[in-house]
């Protein structure tokens, strides 16, 4: 697993600046949450790590690889970054069955069929989808589709796993179970995760570190304990109290 670091990362859409010089580091094996109200820039940060957006300034590194630095004209496209991502809308491909969905990243790496089969079955066991290989996505529940998306993100053993509000479309009970499962899997592999959410229960129960964002700034960063005991300013105090 790997670390991710942001140095003075900015993002400008047309005339509006959505990220004002973000500085932060996610340590190897840590579970980091980006927490904040909608429109605070947390999803943009995540998509910049994935390479789905280009930052307008600053530098993003995964381990020691610079994956994006517009000043030096460096940009590694998403398919070369070896990151996994789980989308809010699941993004499970409706024209492929569960096996093909999960196997897709391995097929692109031209892994042998036998190896693919072993790896996919192993990962499907891990996310508790054993035996659903041949199902097509429309036959699966929302929770099951989310597990397929998770398996697809994990199967190529990414350097970082990115999760974009993965639980917001699930009902409350399922959400609780998924929270535990994701945290357990992350602990088991000591995997570096970035988790975007506006739900502070998710952030506080799952994370090693939380970065609270508002209007394109990191307002406060620390462990759940630190933030709860010592909110950095009024915004953080209001935000965590109103959402409990």
């Amino acid at each position, binding site marked *: 697993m790997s670390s991710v670091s942001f140095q003075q990362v900015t993002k400008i859409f047309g005339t509006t600046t959505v990220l004002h010089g973000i500085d932060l580091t996610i340590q190897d094996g840590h579970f980091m949450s980006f927490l904040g109200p909608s429109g605070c820039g947390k999803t943009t940060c995540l998509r910049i790590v994935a390479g789905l957006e280009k930052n307008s300034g600053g530098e993003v590194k995964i381990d020691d690889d610079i994956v994006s630095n517009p000043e030096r004209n460096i940009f590694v496209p998403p*398919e070369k970054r070896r990151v996994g*991502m789980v989308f809010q809308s699941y993004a499970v491909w409706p024209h492929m069955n569960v096996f093909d969905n999960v196997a*897709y990243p391995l097929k692109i790496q031209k892994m042998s069929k036998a190896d693919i089969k072993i790896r996919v079955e192993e990962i499907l066991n891990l996310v508790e989808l054993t035996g659903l290989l041949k199902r097509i996505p429309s036959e699966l529940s929302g929770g099951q589709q989310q597990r397929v998306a998770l398996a697809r993100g994990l199967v190529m053993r990414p350097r970082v796993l990115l999760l974009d509000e993965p639980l917001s479309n699930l009902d409350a009970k399922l959400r609780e179970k998924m929270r535990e499962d994701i945290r357990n899997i992350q602990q088991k592999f000591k995997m570096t995760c970035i988790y975007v959410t506006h739900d502070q229960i998710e952030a506080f129960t799952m994370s090693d570190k939380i970065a609270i964002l508002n209007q394109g700034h990191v307002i406060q960063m620390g462990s759940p304990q630190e933030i709860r005991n010592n909110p950095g300013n009024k915004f953080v105090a209001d935000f965590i109290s109103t959402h409990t």
Partner: protein
Amino acid sequence: MWPFAVLLGKLLTYTSGGGTSVFSLAFNSASTLKAIMNTVVVGILVAVLSCIISLPLAWIFARTDLAGRHIYKTLFSLPYAIPPFIGAMAWISLANPSTGILNTLVGKSWIDIYGMGGLIWVEATFLYTFVLLNILGAMERLDSSLEEAARISGASPARVFFDITLPLIRPALLSGVLLVFLASAASFGVPALIGTPRGLYLLTTRIYTFQKMGSINGIFIASSLSIILLLLALIGLFINQYLLKKSKVEVVGGKSPRPSLFSFEKKSIWVHVCLCILISILFFLPILGIIIGALAKVQGVLSLDNLGLQNFVKVFLEIPETANAVKNSFLLAATAATAATGLGLLFAFMAVKGQSPFKKIWEFVTSVPFATPGTVLALAFILAFGRGLFGTYLPLYNSLTLIALIYIVKYINFSFRASADGLRQIHDCLAEASLVSGAGPFKTFIHIWIPLLKTTLLASWFLVFMPSFSELTMTILLTGPGLETLGTLLFQLHEYGDASGGGAQVLALFIVAFVICLNFLVKILSKGKYGL
């Protein structure tokens, strides 16, 4: 209730009443089988060529950040608004073996537009827009995270297109291909201008020759041929409905804000060059052909002295039919547009807000005549309103009223769909508030619905006006002395009489300019919702 149902019935009973001898006469002749074969082969090849043109274009317009791609998109969509038979004329000016501009430029005849190849080329260069607009719509609706997930999984942009995008837009692609096939099978102008001179007949041109024979037997043979064409169209319509239903299920509305776009970076200059060459060949070259043809005093001579405005003088001042044709076209198109907008709104109202169990029927009633090839529809009208049948009580045969009626029947689908879309977006509570305020249903309709639907109605009017204005396929079968329209006059000028040429090009130029201006007017008036 709706004349079409009656007409269809009449057509069917009439042809079968004509006896099996007519059918066997029609089917046993080798030329008929040849016409069927040609129709199918041309349709398939046009559809294939349309895909080859459209797929890369759609990808560039919808999935890359190429500068000016919106302008390109409009330019490449423009052939949609221009009647293909005008394109056929343009290509004849360009690549006619003796006087074509491209041939005189080189000094020998190296391209010959007449025949199968030219026919497929001309049809495809106009009809590809059906595929392009269809798949662009589907690509815009596609949830962008499906493609992003594949990028993250390690797939290159090209691989994403083939593994993810293409399979997901397949229903829309197939539906577009089918529309192209049907439009090419139903088209009359292009095969008449480009195929007929070389003895290459399609079903539509065969029907036309039989109908123009004037004998009752000719009409019967024409009708039996038109039934084949109709069957082809109806099968196509049902497959299309099925595909559309499927594409709605598979293509989920996207939430993800902006798709990450592919960047050509330094290679973008080459993309620009390719696009400019392609649009020049597809669009500007034919337009230029028409302009030069319209200005040339003698066709086929390329020099500055040969250019002049005398063709314009001839067409607009000397040919007596021109004034009449312009007047008729405006009158017919305006009447049809007004009536179709009114009726379309009424049908849409019943289909969207109605309570009756027949809600669905309105959609069907308006889409069947639209899917029916114009040639078939016109024949049905001739049979139903001709002498002896209805004709005795309703003397519509050989009248402008009949032509206006057929435009309404054919194009009411456009106004129906525009109105239905508009109505769906207006919540019932707006009307309910008016009812509660004491206005009756009629006053509510006038004071609430009509003002709210203003843009929609305007768009619907133009959507019917534009194709009616330059219609040829149906009009050519229903026209007569004094009933000429711009389309038929243009066709006749091109086919007969006009010795030194140029007259047809003048009219074509007039139609193209007018249609393109109208299109942009619609786009501005509807704030980009309609128009190209």
